[in-house]
Every structure is written in C-alpha cells, then in structure tokens.
C-alpha cells in the first residue's frame, strides 16, 4: 500500500467523475459489472484505429498484427490466473458461455444416466441452469449441497452428498450474492478424491484476489471480462489440457476446423481453437488483456488491502442501522455487502439510493435458490471495488439512514 494513490487510480476511470441525479456517482454495483480504466478503452480504441484485421487466416500485415495481439491477450490471461499454458485458455463471451460449453461437453463425453452433478445452494443461475440442461440430456441428476446460515458451503453436507455417483462438482469461488469465499482448494481436493471433475466459477474471485488455477487444481475455471475492468462480450474458460482435449466441440464453423468436406466429413483443430468457432471478439480479448495488465500493475496485494479497509470501515456502520441485516457476514469474503432492512423492500432501497447518486443492485442477484434458503425475496447489495473510497461508503450509510426514516 506504500504507493497507493487512490485519487490517481480513480482518475484512470473516466466514469467515476460523473454525476447521477445531480449527485456525484457512487458506484457500488461492481459485482454486476466493473468500471473500465482508460488504459483498457485505449487498448480497444487503438486496436480499431491501427490494427484491425481478421485473425488467423490472413497473410497481410493487419491480419498478422491482430493475430499477434489476440495471441498475446491469451498469454496475459494465462499468466493472470496461473494457467500452465496459453493453450489452456479459451475465449468465450463470458462466464455463462464458459459454463455452458463445459456442461454441454460433459453431458456428451462424461455424464451417464444415474450420475450426479453436485452444486451448492449459493450458485448463480449461470452455474445452475446449464447443469439442469446437462442432466436432462444425459440422464444425470443435479444434487445440491446445503450452505450454512452464515453463507458458507456446509462442508459436512457437501461431504455427505459427495459419493461414487458424483461425476461433476461445480461451485462458486466467491458468492456474488453474499461475497463469501469458499474454501475452494479443500472442496476441489474432496471432489477429486471422489472422482469428480470440478468447475470453479471465478466471476467474483478474479476481480478481488490472486487466483492460481494450478494451485487450486480445478479442472475448469471461468470468469467474465466485464467484471475485471475489461470489456463486455469477452470472458475466459480455463481447462486442464486433458479435459479440453476430451471435451467435444461446441459451436462449429470457421477457424476451428481441420478440413471441411461434404463427402469425407469434417475434422477439427485442437484446443483452444476447436472451441472458438467463427470470428472471435478480437477487440474484446485485447481489451481484457489490457485489463489484466492493469490489475497486475495495480497489484492484488494492494487491492486486497484497500478492499479490506473499505469493508472494515463500512460493515460496522451498516450493522448499526436499526433493522439492517447483513447476509454472509463473515471474515473471509470479497467486498460484497448484501443486506435487508426490516419492512423495506430491497427495490425501494435501490431506488432511493439511486436518487442520491448511489448505484447498488436490488433483487435476487441471479441466485433465487439462495434467496429461498434465506426466505427473502431479495437483498440490496453494495459491492465495492478497489477504486471506491471511504467517503463513498459514508454516503451509502447516510443514505440508508435516511431510508430508515422515510419508512419508519
């Protein structure tokens, strides 16, 4: 934190200086999507102004430059998450597509009737519905591990439900609805001992702390570019080499084929190309490369410290507000604060905060089973990023106190 210059960092994010409803924007919806530093916007812009060409198939200069830039983005992403090789990285639209690709493939090459897919009750819909579909297709069954009231995986229940039929375990690294961080390494070890393949949903871990897929030992890891200061439309699927080899193709078309023939049939390339049909989001990948560069340069040690400081500042102040209850109020968490207020619906909280320029999310956060577990329709969620300030946290607290009074 020695060199932590928050004002300098904030000035990298053009939108943070803007006003909403006549008030300075206080952006606390980072778990939904992060803001983007100029460095990322400029990388995208530079690509289109100086380097734009379709990749892979061209002998001309721009095509070569674009191909190199795209490949370099893959290398950056591989380093960012500790993947052994850039060829273990597949570019997808986002975490949702990554999970769909894996679930679709495992339904074809791995899951059989009677097998079990073990999820947890705190998953994002993106890590539930694709598995329900895979189950339907393969005859496997979705099994749900309980969570504890404090919003952590119930390891006892998980271990109980893990068994010889469990062929897939898929779970969230850090919950988008609660912020709680799961003991991923331990869960992955248990799952592997049971013979299951493991997907880890890193949407909310990748933006907040250093992820090393080699240490975690997950078979698949997904995250979305737009949540790590990158562009929309690009995301990452990491897979262990042997699993990427084993998975069948997903979308098909140009660039992913070996040979196409009506008479002799069609052959496919190796991973990652076999999973990237058609023209990819070249500019998006380059923007994502710039985003992980930005996070690396900022440094996760500093990011974690700054976010911890924010959390230490705001959580006690929230707890003091009468009738306010924080869900997932534990130590090991990313700076996501999900709460309800007695007699006040989350949407009303969201709307009133918005009139004060404060952006939070209200609702089920694409985690309806979790909301059902808590018996609530939804929460209001303030999710912080390293570029937020304690003053912004104070503005949130002040506005919530006002809401308390309006609804008193």
């Amino acid at each position, binding site marked *: 934190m020695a060199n932590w210059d928050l004002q300098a960092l904030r000035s990298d994010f053009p939108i943070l200086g803007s006003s909403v409803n006549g008030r300075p924007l206080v952006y606390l919806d980072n778990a939904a999507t992060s803001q983007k530093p100029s460095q990322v916007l400029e990388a995208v812009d530079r690509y289109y102004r100086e380097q734009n060409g379709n990749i892979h198939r061209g002998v001309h200069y721009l095509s070569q430059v674009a191909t190199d830039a795209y490949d370099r983005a893959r290398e950056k992403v591989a380093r960012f998450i500790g993947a052994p090789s850039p060829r273990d990285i597949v570019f997808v639209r986002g975490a949702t597509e990554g999970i769909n690709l894996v679930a679709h493939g495992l339904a074809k090459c791995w899951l059989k009737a009677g097998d079990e897919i073990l999820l947890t009750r705190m998953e994002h819909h993106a890590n539930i519905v694709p598995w329900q579909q895979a189950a339907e297709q393969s005859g496997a069954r979705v099994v749900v591990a309980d969570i504890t009231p404090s919003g952590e995986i119930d390891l006892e229940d998980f271990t109980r439900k893990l068994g010889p039929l469990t062929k897939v375990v898929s779970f969230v690294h850090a919950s988008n609805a609660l912020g709680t961080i799961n003991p991923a390494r331990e869960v992955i070890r248990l799952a592997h001992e049971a013979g299951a393949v493991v997907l880890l949903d890193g949407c909310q871990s990748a933006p907040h702390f250093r992820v090393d897929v080699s240490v975690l030992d997950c078979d698949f890891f997904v995250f979305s570019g737009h949540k790590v200061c990158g562009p929309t439309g690009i995301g990452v699927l990491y897979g262990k080499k042997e699993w990427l080899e084993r998975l069948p193709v997903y979308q098909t078309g140009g660039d992913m084929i070996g040979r196409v023939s009506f008479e002799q049939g069609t052959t496919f390339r190796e991973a990652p190309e076999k999973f990237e049909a058609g023209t990819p989001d070249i500019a998006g990948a380059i923007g994502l490369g710039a985003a992980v560069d930005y996070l690396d340069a900022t440094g996760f040690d500093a990011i974690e410290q700054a976010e911890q400081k924010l959390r230490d500042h705001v959580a006690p102040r929230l707890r003091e507000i009468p009738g306010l209850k924080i869900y997932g109020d534990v130590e090991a968490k990313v700076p996501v604060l999900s709460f309800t207020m007695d*007699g*006040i*619906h*989350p*949407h*009303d909280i969201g*709307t*009133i905060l918005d*009139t004060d320029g404060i952006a939070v999310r*209200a*609702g*089920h956060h694409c985690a*309806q089973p979790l*909301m059902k577990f808590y018996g609530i*329709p*939804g929460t209001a969620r303030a999710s912080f990023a390293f570029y937020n300030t304690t003053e912004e946290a104070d503005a949130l607290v002040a506005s919530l106190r006002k809401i308390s009074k*309006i*609804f008193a």
Partner: protein
Amino acid sequence: MSELADLYQEIILDHNKRPRNYREMPECTCSAEGNNPLCGDEVKVSVRLDNDTLSDVAFQGQGCAISRASASMMTGKTKGRTASEARALSGQVRDMLLGPEAAPPPEVGDLAALSGVRKFPARIKCAMLPWHTLEAALAGQATATSESGD
C-alpha cells in the same frame, strides 16, 4: 429529492405498511399469480365475481412498496365494480404511468399517488404488476408477467 417525495408519498408508504385486503380468499371465483422475473416481485390476486361484479378482491405476495401500495389500493378501488369497469381503471392507471404526461383523471382517486412512478421507468413494472395480474384473473388466466403488456 422532490421526485423521491413524489414517489414515496405518505399514502404509498401507508398502504405499504398496512396493506388492505392482504389475505387469502378460499371462496374466490378466480385468481392469478403475477411475477416480475427481473426483480422477483410476486403477487397473487384473488377475486370473487358475482354476476360480473367484483364483490371481493384481495392480494398476497411479496413486492416493493410501489407494487404493494398499488395492489392494496387496487383491491379497494375495484371492489364493487364490474369486470369491465375494473379493466378500464387498469387502463387509466397504465395511461397515467406510460401515456403522455397529463393530470391524473378524477376516476383514479387515490391511485393518483402512483403518478410519481412515471419518473422512475425501472419501477413502472412494479406499479403495473398487480393490474396485469387482476386482468389475467378476470380473463381466466392463471399467470401474468410484467413483461407482456407494456
């Protein structure tokens, strides 16, 4: 702040806190469940029709202050009316929220308090959900969502 005061008028806050006709109605002749998939609001509207007259209207469910107040006021306003009068009222509420800006028509009475929602486009679906659900119930449909209709 004045837009906010327009939205959360006393009468809205009051209906939110003490919703009228918030109950089951085992003897209802028709009912429908409405939901807003985007925010998770859910409302069940039950109606007893006697010769085309809504002799009783009740609701249940979970929703924000806007949808609760809208539902609560709706039950009071439509009770004793004919089905077509109820539908007409629903249309007037819709016009008030989505049509060209104008003073709320006198027929809507207390419902005029909902006009503050105009300025909050994200919340119009909340205010309309009970009405869509009532219309669905009257049309003999079991469900309504906030997506159809507006």
